[in-house]
């Protein structure tokens, strides 16, 4: 048995002040003046307790690209960011397109013990976009995969997409589409518009994203499937999803923290840390994404945490890899972009970063948030903190954060996962203790 934990005086997302008593893997009691002999006491005065954050879009890179990230290092980056669940994208080597690979990734996650690692299965064999992967085998494996994605590549073939949407329905799964029309984005380097024309970088038109979303929501409607759109990045995409939802199409959508905060103007530096897929867009797009998140058109925030080794970014723009790390900074960036300006409150944050992604991923235990009897998965966050975000805040292997030297609000001080703390006093609990806690059987 792990030791009981007693949190004193935390503010729930609703604003209600409460103590939280954790026993075993569950939240045992809520209320004021709780006490428990022998419990680890945590003073949460002034802190906000958020349900454990769930990332629907994480690149853990293992197996195959361990120089960029491993399941363990990515899990540590997640925990320090307040996450208790990550969904690991399928673009590993080998690709997560069989039951064997997804089970391996899941068991690496269980052994690391910082977060629940839920593998995402590939839609097509080898992400090649020509033949369906073993979706049924992955769905029925120990990993119980429910989200399928060729992320990094678009399922561009309309017939394959139709079949995938239909087939996944059989297993109550969802296809998460990386919407990028490949022919319109050959060699594309940044958002196509005024800045790309000036910088002489090949343009990545908004329509390449919007056209695929429009096609796919219509396909989903036709076959009665649900569909999830990864990393919306344009104002037009928000409009298309809004239209689809109004028609009753079962579509959900995500936005990344960086698309809520950063614009293409940063590319003027040719600093490859700002190179990402989809690319940073215009200020108008950022505003539309924020409004879409606030009005529910966009369901969730997902990080698209994409670590790369230094040599992949320390070079000329065109040679650089696309992607940014985001787990460690996600909550702070959400606060900076949509909470501090009043567009979202903390209940909304709990919805877009915890219950929402859990619902899309068919993950149990996150629907009700911090309630008695719910799994003890939460994080204590100090929204009044301010810090210059630096390399020392990163806990994964990747240093390719776009926020280095930005001043960001907020700080995660404690994260509790499976009833034990993975973060205490703003620092990760050591890997050995976590692995030991994770190995304790439960039932």
């Amino acid at each position: 048995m792990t030791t009981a934990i007693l949190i004193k005086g935390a503010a729930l997302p609703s604003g209600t002040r409460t103590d939280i008593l954790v026993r075993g893997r569950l939240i045992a009691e809520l209320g004021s003046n709780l006490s428990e002999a022998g419990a680890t006491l945590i003073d949460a005065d002034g802190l906000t307790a958020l349900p454990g954050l769930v990332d629907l879009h994480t690149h853990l890179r293992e197996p195959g690209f361990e120089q960029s990230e491993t399941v363990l290092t990515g899990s540590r980056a997640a925990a320090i960011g307040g996450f208790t669940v990550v969904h690991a994208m399928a673009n590993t080597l080998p690709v997560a397109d069989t039951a064997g690979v997804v089970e391996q990734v899941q068991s690496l996650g269980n052994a690391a013990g910082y977060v629940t690692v839920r593998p995402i299965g590939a839609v097509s064999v080898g992400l090649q976009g020509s033949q369906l992967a073993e979706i049924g085998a992955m769905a029925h494996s120990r990993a119980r995969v429910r989200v399928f994605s060729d992320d990094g590549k678009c399922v561009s073939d309309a017939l394959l997409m139709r079949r995938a949407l239909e087939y996944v329905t059989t297993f109550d799964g969802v296809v998460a589409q990386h919407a990028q029309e490949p022919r319109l984005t050959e060699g594309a380097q940044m958002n196509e518009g005024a800045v790309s024309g000036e910088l002489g970088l090949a343009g990545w038109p908004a329509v390449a994203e919007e056209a695929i979303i429009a096609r796919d929501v219509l396909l989903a409607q036709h076959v009665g499937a649900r569909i999830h759109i990864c990393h919306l990045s344009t104002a037009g995409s928000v409009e298309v999803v809004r239209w689809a939802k109004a028609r009753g199409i079962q579509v959900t959508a995500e936005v990344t923290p960086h698309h809520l905060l950063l614009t293409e103007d940063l590319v003027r530096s040719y600093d490859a840390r700002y190179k990402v897929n989809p690319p940073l867009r215009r200020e108008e797009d950022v505003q539309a994404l924020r409004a879409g998140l606030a009005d529910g058109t966009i369901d969730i925030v997902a990080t698209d945490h994409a670590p790369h080794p230094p040599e992949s970014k320390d070079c000329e723009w065109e040679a650089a890899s696309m992607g940014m790390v985001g787990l460690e900074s996600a909550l702070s960036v959400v606060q900076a972009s949509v909470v501090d300006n009043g567009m979202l409150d903390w209940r909304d944050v709990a919805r877009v970063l915890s219950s929402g992604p859990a619902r899309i991923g068919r993950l149990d235990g996150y629907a009700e948030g911090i309630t008695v009897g719910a799994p003890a998965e939460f994080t204590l966050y100090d929204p009044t903190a301010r810090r210059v975000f630096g390399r020392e805040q990163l806990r994964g292997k990747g240093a390719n954060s776009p926020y280095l030297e930005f001043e960001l609000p907020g700080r995660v001080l404690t994260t509790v996962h499976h009833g034990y703390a993975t973060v205490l006093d703003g620092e990760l609990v050591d890997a050995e203790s976590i692995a030991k806690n994770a190995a304790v059987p439960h039932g």
Partner: protein
Amino acid sequence: MRHLLSTRDLDREEAIGILDVAEDMAEVQNREVRKLPTLRGRTVVNLFFEDSTRTRISFEAAAKRLSADVINFSAKGSSVSKGESLKDTAQTLASIGADAVVVRHPASGAPQVLAQSDWIEAGIINAGDGTHEHPTQGLLDAFTIRRRLHGRTARGKALDGVSVSIVGDILHSRVARSNVWLLTSLGANVRLVAPATLLPVGVTGWPVTIGYDLDDAIAERPDVVMMLRIQAERMSGGFFPNAREYSRRWGLDDARFNALPPTSIVMHPGPMNRGLEISSRAADSDRSTVLEQVTNGVSVRMAVLYLVLSTGKGPA
């Protein structure tokens, strides 16, 4: 001037200042001994990640006429996967003791990345980066126009009210970009003429007028017509149906050349595709500045090397 990365960074006074120094350098070119001792002991590296014999020998001639030591470094294959990285190459040059590095690179922004990095302290001169800029080409074009218009009294002057039509593949042209920013800073009125497929999406925000029709542009009696080279790969890229149609619509053929006012000058950055974007008659006429541009290129590059190396690190 610490570096020269783009003409967009140059304001009107700075640009006139560079052109005036280039006039001084041009005077030296008319002397019996064309060499100045100014940069003796300084090392200039021509770092070319992309073939360009014309630009390289122009910089080489410029550096040698200022008595600098010149190292030519041809480093084709720029990305990590193909060979040595930009970073390692830069650190190697820093260790050799380069005082200025003239960079030609197929990736837009590569010279700026070098200048911002802590890999190398040397002054960086952009000799053409991807489809971004080719600032010394812009400067030598402005210099050529100014000399044609003002002759020996060019010093201190800008290009106010001069009308310039730039014709061809604007989308992929670093020459066009450098000319647009520089010529408009100097007060010229620039018109871009191209099929819509060869104009960047954001071009409406540029300080220029846009036209699709070359005959219309010629009817407005421009002081300067600058023809851009059509690259072979654009012809297969679906930007226009074929070379014949391009030539018919956007080539400076004999009829269009005859329709130009007798005072108009015809420019081309070279190398030319004769018979495609420019007819031989236009290219070889006395209104063509093609060879003057090459001569002036050496003077302008001498000026840029001098200005960068006299403000860079190390003994001046």
